[in-house]
Every structure is written in C-alpha cells, then in structure tokens.
C-alpha cells in the first residue's frame, strides 16, 4: 500500500502531462506542425518520466528503458500516421 502511495504524485504528474498534451491537440486542431510538436514533446516526457520514476524506485533496467521507448515510438508513429492522413 505504501508503495502505491509513493507512486501517486508521480502518476498525477504523468496524467497532467497527458492532459496538457490532449488539450493542446484540441486547441491547435488546425495547426498540424504544432500537433506534431506536441506529440513529440509528450512522447519524450513519457520516456523521461519512466526513467526518473524507475531510477527513484531503484528498478531502472535496460529492458525497462526499451519498453518505454518502444511504447512511445508506437504512439508517435500512430499519431504521425493520423495527422498526415487528415
């Protein structure tokens, strides 16, 4: 329980990043360049969050880094595909 409690501030910050990104995506729906920039910024933030979070919890391993990078890359590819096909 204590372990989960220590995660909460981290998760809140992560959700905050995603919420800001989503709002930016909505507000700049007409600006494709800005949407791409937002997506890249969020993907990088997500990976950095993962590195910092696991480092703090002392369970940062190469496989974990790869996991975050690969999921972020998938998200980037999907959003790029969508934005460029609109």
């Amino acid at each position: 329980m204590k372990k989960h409690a220590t995660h909460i501030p981290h998760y809140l910050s992560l959700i905050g990043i995603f919420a800001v990104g989503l709002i930016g995506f909505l507000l700049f729906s007409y600006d494709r360049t800005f949407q791409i920039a937002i997506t890249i910024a969020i993907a990088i933030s997500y990976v950095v969050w993962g590195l910092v979070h696991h480092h703090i919890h002392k369970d940062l391993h190469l496989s974990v880094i790869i996991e975050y990078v690969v999921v972020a890359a998938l998200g980037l590819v999907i959003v790029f595909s969508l934005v460029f096909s609109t």
Partner: protein
Amino acid sequence: MLTLYLISHYFFPQQSNNNRPKLLQASSIFLFIALFIILQTSLYLIPKTGLRVLGYAANISVEEVVRLTNEKRAQSGLAPLTLNSTLSNAARMKGEDMINKDYWAHVSPDGTEPWKFFTDAGYQYRYAGENLARDFSNPSSAIDAWMASPTHKDNMLSSKYQEIGIAVLEGDLAGVDTTLIVQLFGTSLSASTQASVPVAHAEEITEEIPVIVEEEVVPLEPPVEPVVVAQAEESLTPTAMPLLALAKPPTTAGQSAVSSITRISPFNATRNISIIVVGLLIMVFTIDGILVARKRIPRVAGRTFAHISFLGMILAIALILRAGRIL
C-alpha cells in the same frame, strides 16, 4: 489446444512468456510499428501506381457553407455576407486551377496568386480574402476548422467583407479523390464609398505591401498576402444572387453539392486500425496489470498504469481527430 496456448501466450502473463504477455513485449510492439509504416507507405504509393481507390466521401452544399458562415458572423454581431455569383465563379476558377495543376496552396506552382481569379472573373475588389478546405465530410466540420484557426477566423468574421463566393469541387489531388471548398470574400469597388484611384495603382499597392496592416485575409502557410486592400474608380456591380439560385449544379468541376465518393479514405483506414491496435494493447496491459498484482508476480517491467495512460491519450487523439485540412 494450440489456439488456447497461443491466446494464453500472447494475452496473459505466464512462464512461457517470462510473465509478460507476448503481445506487450518489445518485439511485438516493433511489429505494430512496422505495420503502421507499411500501411502509410502503401497509402502514399497507391496513388502513384495509377490506382484510384483512395478518396474522401463528402456531402457539402454551397448553401450550407454560406449559411454557417453567416451564422458565425451573426453570433459576432456582424452583418451577413451576400452570395455573389461573380465571386462564386472566381472560387470555381481557383478550385479548377488547383485540380488541373494538382496543387494545394493559395499560390499556384507557376506563381498565380488568388487575387488573379477575382479579377479574371470580373470582380473588382476593394478587399479580398480566401479560405481553402479539403477532405471534409460535411460543411460544419470545415467551418469549425476555419473558426479554430485565428487567421481563417479573421477572414470569416471581418467587417470589411460584404460578399462571399463559394465553390465546392470534386477532383483528384495527388492521386486521391477529394472535395475542395474554396471560400472567397470580397467587397466590390462599387460598394466602396472611399476615394477612388485607378485600378493599375491599386494593384501596385498590393504588390508593394504584401502584408498590409488591415489585412485579414490569410492563412499562414503559403506566402500569400493575407489581405488585399485596393481602391479603384472602375467598378463592377456585384450580381448578388439568392442562395437558391446558386444551388443549381455548375458545369464542370464546380458543384453546389457533392455526394458521396465510395473510395477508401486514407484517414479512416488509419484511424480504424489505430483504434483497434491501441484498444487491444490497452486491454492486454489491463489484464496483465490485474493478474500480476493478484498473483504478486515479481518481474522487471515498466509501470502498467503509465503505459495505459499514454496509450489512452493516443486513443483519445485518434478519436478526436477528424479528416480535413484547411489553408
């Protein structure tokens, strides 16, 4: 038996997959990335092969575009714009030019500026502006997209304009069937009460001052001056027509309404596949997270909640994005 094993291997954490569903392992996610790259490459290459299977379905009427534009103006306390047939003809000429020369820009590849179509159609303007849209399935989404863009919104809500011309054209741009909306704004010289100067002089001013102080006209990207401010003593009497009169189907590419095109929409195809892939991953991450927590399986892995949150945001983006581009 094999099927059950595969399902279990790909969807549930167990010994055979080192307590991480195969679908969530880096190798599987790489395959999804490759799938999207292949899909986008195919969508890009298909038109180049000459196959005309891609396109955007649309049902857009000129009257609705005008009505919605005036509705937005009314909400801002502005007078409605009058539909002008000469201006609509200029819009049709601009749209046909884009389709014939296969470009998507305010200025054509040979340097033809939008204002040329105004004068070619016989519309002598004091103020002029242009908004473009493509790939929208209905008029309200195009209007909403214009309103979301400050420069396009400025055009739509400018008090300088008194008339509007609309052309909706169906054609092929870069091998993809699409529907173009050309929205031209203007105030004819005849409506102007200001001091007049010769036409030639007016054009000179336009060229010398690409971006004029009062201009509203344009959308950013291409190097088009947002606004044209011109004065002249010669003027044409705008032939404003009732909306219904413009409803008749135009001759060539110009159409008052374009009915559906039954082709594969690149956007919808990408969007549907994205939703399926992301939805599947979220589901498997959720199952994985629950089982690992319940069974207290010790393992080295990223945080399931973080991955689900990130993919949830990607899913939300896929759901809110709509086809259509403005310029």
